[in-house]
């Protein structure tokens, strides 16, 4: 049932009876483990025989692929001894699915470990973090030169991008979620389409406007504008979803107390959605910080330390990585990997913070906040019961029900990024 007042759309659903949990029905028997292990041993032995005695193929990749195929065949034969055809197919598919997921994880681990391990040679020198590359040529050893200019450039650019995109993004998200209508629907559609904006197009746009049309030089400020163009849709899109997750009864309670829209947004909606909004901003930041091509087009490459974003070229970490590895010198490549490792650590930290803050949905409290709220409630109860016995129960049970509804709003990050896909997720009766 939907009650529509002229200003706010409030969806009223039946209170959840608790999220249905799926029961696990799988059992692992001893014979299952034996058949898997046995097939694996047989497959590896058979393929090492093929590779060392018959020499049909060669190479590590070929060995792994051959053993895997042999494993699938042997395993299906082994399972076929005491299971039906259907069960064999089920087992084989489950092995394939699990190995694909494993492959994906392995790739991530390899990407992270490989970058860090190649970068360690550069990261070991303290000057890598304290000097720029202006006095260092391509042939100089790693004990000279560093990426201070790139670190400073990245921080300055992202800071300026955030100064623009946080107010603009959050107010737009508030507009979309608080003032429904044709105009906000148009903005939502356009913003949704823009989240897939190729980064080079964002760079090209700022290049066309700020540098070619307005006649400014390449600068850190232009690069931060390009980052803003990329980050805005992400912040607005995920911010909108978080704001819409704020329970209607909280807002209604505020309206019922006679407060204005502005007061309600400032005192109820935004504080409730604070953790989600922070996550939205951090996700946008992670995307903006890692992009190379907008900076390449709008800020140019430099080896000098430059703290003035309004004049002179300015380089960022991804761009520094890119220009380092274009050089054939091993020292420069090592520096490239070093700056890539620094960049990755930066993104990992941002991501961890986002997880920490945004793991909770809109209005879901941390343990400490929960304790404080409970204490406040208790104080109220004792205060009320001192003057007017009977009114206290209503207060506590009301807040309790609100908290129960909120567990519904725990959505993973992807759902926040692509709200349209998950918009119709309804609560089951």
């Amino acid at each position, binding site marked *: 049932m939907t009650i529509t007042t002229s*200003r706010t759309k409030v969806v009223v659903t039946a209170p959840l009876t608790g999220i249905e949990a*799926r029961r696990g029905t*799988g059992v692992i028997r001893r014979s299952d483990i034996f058949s898997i292990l046995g097939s694996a041993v047989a497959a590896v032995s058979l393929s090492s025989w093929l590779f060392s005695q018959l020499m049909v193929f060669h*190479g*590590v990749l070929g060995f792994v692929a051959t053993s895997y195929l042999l494993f699938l065949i042997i395993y299906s034969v082994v399972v076929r001894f005491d299971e039906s055809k*259907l069960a064999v197919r*089920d087992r084989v598919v*489950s092995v*394939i699915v*699990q*190995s*694909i*997921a494993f*492959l*994906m994880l392995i790739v*991530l681990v*390899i*990407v992270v470990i*490989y970058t860090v391990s*190649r970068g360690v040679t550069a990261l070991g020198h303290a000057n890598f973090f304290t000097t720029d590359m202006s006095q260092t040529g391509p042939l100089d050893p790693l004990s000279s030169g560093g990426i201070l200019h790139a670190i400073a450039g990245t921080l300055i650019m992202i800071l300026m991008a955030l100064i623009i995109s946080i107010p603009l993004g959050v*107010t*737009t998200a508030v*507009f979309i979620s608080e003032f429904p209508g044709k105009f906000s629907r148009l903005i939502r559609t*356009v913003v*949704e*389409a823009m989240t*897939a*904006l*190729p980064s*080079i*197009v964002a760079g*090209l*746009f700022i290049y*066309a*406007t700020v540098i070619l049309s307005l006649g400014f030089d390449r600068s850190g400020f232009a690069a931060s504008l390009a980052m803003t*163009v990329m980050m*805005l*849709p992400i912040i607005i899109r995920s911010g909108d979803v978080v704001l819409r997750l704020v329970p209607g009864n909280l807002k209604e309670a505020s309206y019922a107390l006679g407060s*204005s*829209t502005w*007061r309600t947004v400032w005192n109820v909606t935004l504080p409730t959605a604070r953790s989600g909004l922070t996550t939205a901003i951090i996700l946008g930041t*992670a995307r903006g910080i*890692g*992009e190379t*091509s907008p900076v390449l087009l709008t800020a140019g490459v430099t080896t000098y330390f430059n703290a003035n974003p309004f004049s002179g070229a300015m380089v960022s970490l991804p761009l520094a*990585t*890119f220009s380092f*590895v274009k050089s054939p010198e091993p020292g420069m490549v090592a520096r*490239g990997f070093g700056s*890539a490792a620094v960049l*990755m650590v930066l*993104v990992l930290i941002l*991501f961890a913070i986002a997880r920490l803050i945004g793991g909770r949905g809109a209005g879901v409290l941390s343990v400490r906040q929960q304790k404080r709220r409970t204490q406040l409630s208790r104080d109220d109860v004792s205060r009320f019961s001192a003057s007017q016995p009977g009114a206290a129960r209503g207060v506590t049970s009301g807040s309790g029900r609100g908290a129960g509804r909120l567990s519904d709003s725990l959505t*993973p990050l*992807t759902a926040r990024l*692509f709200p349209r*896909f*998950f918009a119709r*997720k*309804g609560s089951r009766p």
Partner: protein
Amino acid sequence: MPRSLRYARGAQDRVFALVTRGSGAIVLTIMLLVGVFLLIKGYPALSAAKLGFLTTQAWDPNSGVFGIAAVLAGTIFIALTAITVAIPLATGTALYISEYAPPRIKQALISIIDLMAAIPSVVYGLWGLFLLQPSILDLSKWIATYFGWIPMFHVTGFDPNNPLASATIFTASTFVAGLVVAMMVAPIVSSIMREVFTQAPIGEREGALALGATRWGMIRSVVLPFGRGGMIGGTMLGLGRAMGETIAVYLIVSPVFTIQPHILEKGSNSISALIALRYSEASPFEISALMGAGLVLFLMTLVVNFGASFIIARSRSGASSDG
């Protein structure tokens, strides 16, 4: 009959509405200006080249012979290679997380996949250039040896019977670039698929199991049909990402300006790599041509993205059954 509500808006509220509407308008203007400015700046070159812009392969704007046929084809080949590799990877991972993974590690796996999507593209580019490319050459060679008769996998100048043939003709190819881009788009595709798979109604799942289906039987008859819209939409979204990828492709491919349909062969190109390669030494007219190329890329990603959300919105995904 509910009484119609009337209210008077205070001054504070009027200012608030004005400010938020204003910032909405600013954002909308910026987003629309992206297309408008690319069109304005690209117009001189587009009007000079006319339809030849889409059919000419060479890129020499200063002599008047230029077009994006080669880079457009390269963009599409790289994106298709990437998405072909990414679909099985993403589907498998999504199925594993939603159907097979023990509940204890499920949340951790979701975080890891999200994190994988957040790793900067230049890091993937480095990985592809220094680690993947040298080790994948054997695979390229193997495919070219046994499947070279398929036109797509043909490699000019490769003789399978010559054991001393250098493997360098397989480097910097569409295939390698596509693999790297696949690793970048697979996580995002996988997250969308996983989200749709987990929404498959429990009632229908348990119905299938109660009728004697194996786990795979249940997945095939309930989860996959239910998630089809999400799978297609997620794939298209990944395709849009793959088309726009710049730095990883730029690092890996060696640019050519002919349509290169042999994906294993050295040399490829994409619109974004072309822009990154040429913008710095370009004459004003060439800049205009690059803007035109950017406009085409922009329109392509828009179409793909709108298509994706349209398909997802129309599919059954996200609706819940009464089970």
